């Protein structure tokens, strides 16, 4: 079967450029995508020269701490692989354990097979894949689902790409107990934690999307906020930043309404509505050094 799209050099360049622009950091991930793109071009050239070009295995495992962009990248991966011509349809089927594993004997196989059939021609994304295997229960049906998946991953490599995602330590344990799965996955991509600068860039990107802007003072405060937030337990990288920004928006709204004394906001300029001031961020509990509670900052 032929690929749906015929990528040319410039198309791939454009693809990588948009990826660079829209995803902050994630150097290992971008490197891997670049390598895959290069491999495709080389394979096409080899084909033209009459050399054999076996279809590469593209199953992937994304590991990393919470909020490092695993799900975001996986969602984009389907589109990317489609553009590169690796998958025919380019849709993404996102599932978790519940969609694959049945509740009684004989329920798992049809369930897993149906999911696999739906994912054919696209990408099957299994979030929190380590839940599939539960060593504490030897009669767990997760193992059955894994075995069916392994077979399809091996036999129908051309038809679908499987991406597993999960936290690093748990995925490592999952692969240790399922060596067959580990060896069938060609690309183990580890998502590094973001640096403070990258987190700031991500915050900027999020604010741009939500059509907010930071005052200069607020930008400095946000940088401080990120530094402090990183030290705290339960820090979840970009997700924490998103939550922090959401709370800043709440405080900004509260401040505007308070200052005006009305919810109509007729006196508020567009500028005011868009700008998040330092005090909106400063009010966060992260700045309250003396506080002991471990609740949400």
């Amino acid at each position, binding site marked *: *079967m032929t690929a749906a799209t015929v990528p040319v050099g410039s198309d791939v360049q454009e693809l990588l450029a948009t990826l660079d622009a829209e995803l902050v950091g994630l150097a290992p991930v971008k490197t891997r995508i670049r390598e895959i793109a290069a491999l495709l071009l080389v394979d096409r050239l080899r084909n033209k020269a009459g050399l054999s070009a076996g279809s590469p295995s593209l199953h992937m495992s994304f590991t990393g701490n919470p909020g490092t962009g695993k799900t975001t990248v996986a969602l984009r991966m389907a589109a990317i692989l489609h553009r590169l011509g690796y998958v*025919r*349809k380019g*849709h993404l089927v996102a599932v978790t354990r519940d969609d694959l594993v049945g509740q009684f004997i004989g329920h798992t196989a*049809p369930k897993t097979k*149906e999911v*696999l*059939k*739906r994912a*054919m*021609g*696209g990408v099957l994304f299994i979030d929190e894949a380590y839940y599939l295997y539960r060593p504490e229960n030897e009669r767990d049906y997760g193992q059955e689902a894994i075995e069916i998946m392994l077979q399809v991953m091996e036999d*129908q490599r051309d*038809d*679908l790409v499987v991406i597993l995602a999960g936290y690093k330590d748990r995925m490592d344990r999952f692969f240790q107990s399922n060596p067959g799965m580990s060896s069938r996955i060609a690309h183990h991509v580890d998502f590094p934690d973001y640096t403070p600068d990258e987190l700031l860039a991500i915050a900027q990107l999020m604010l741009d999307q939500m059509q907010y802007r930071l005052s200069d003072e607020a930008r400095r405060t946000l940088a401080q906020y990120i530094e402090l937030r990183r030290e705290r337990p339960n820090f979840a990288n970009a997700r924490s930043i998103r939550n922090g920004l959401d709370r800043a928006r709440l405080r900004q709204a509260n401040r505007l309404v308070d200052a005006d004394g009305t919810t109509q906001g007729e006196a508020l300029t567009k500028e005011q509505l868009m700008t998040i001031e330092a005090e909106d961020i400063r009010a966060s509990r992260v700045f309250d050094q003396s506080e002991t509670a471990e609740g949400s900052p």
Partner: protein
Amino acid sequence: MRITQGTFSFLPDLTDEQISAQIEYCLEQGWAVSIEHTDDPHPRNTYWDMFGQPMFDLRDAAGVMSEVASARATFPDAYIKVNAFDATRGFETVRLSFIVNRPAHEPGFALIREEAAGRAIRYTIRSYAVERPEGERYP
């Protein structure tokens, strides 16, 4: 005697590639594809047995093709057909249906004459295959 029925009854049997292309078309139209099988070749045998459940939400023919392969492995000597059901209001029916597997040897039909009242003769046909019980018809 080669049994024909369905959308491509006038054509020779489709190859796997052609079957895949037809299924691809069905999925593009948003039709749900299902697989049925039988070992009774009578033309009036409308209700075949389902092989698995109808496949909804599929995007690519590969999923159906793997199911066709498993149906062929399970019933190598049976008639297997692929149906595409259109759920659009106003249609709500099978839009396309064709045979993808048939027994190696199809013995054909006998013409049966029944003498009715007043020297009238009634005619019917009966497949030689159904002389044996279900499941043993195509050894």
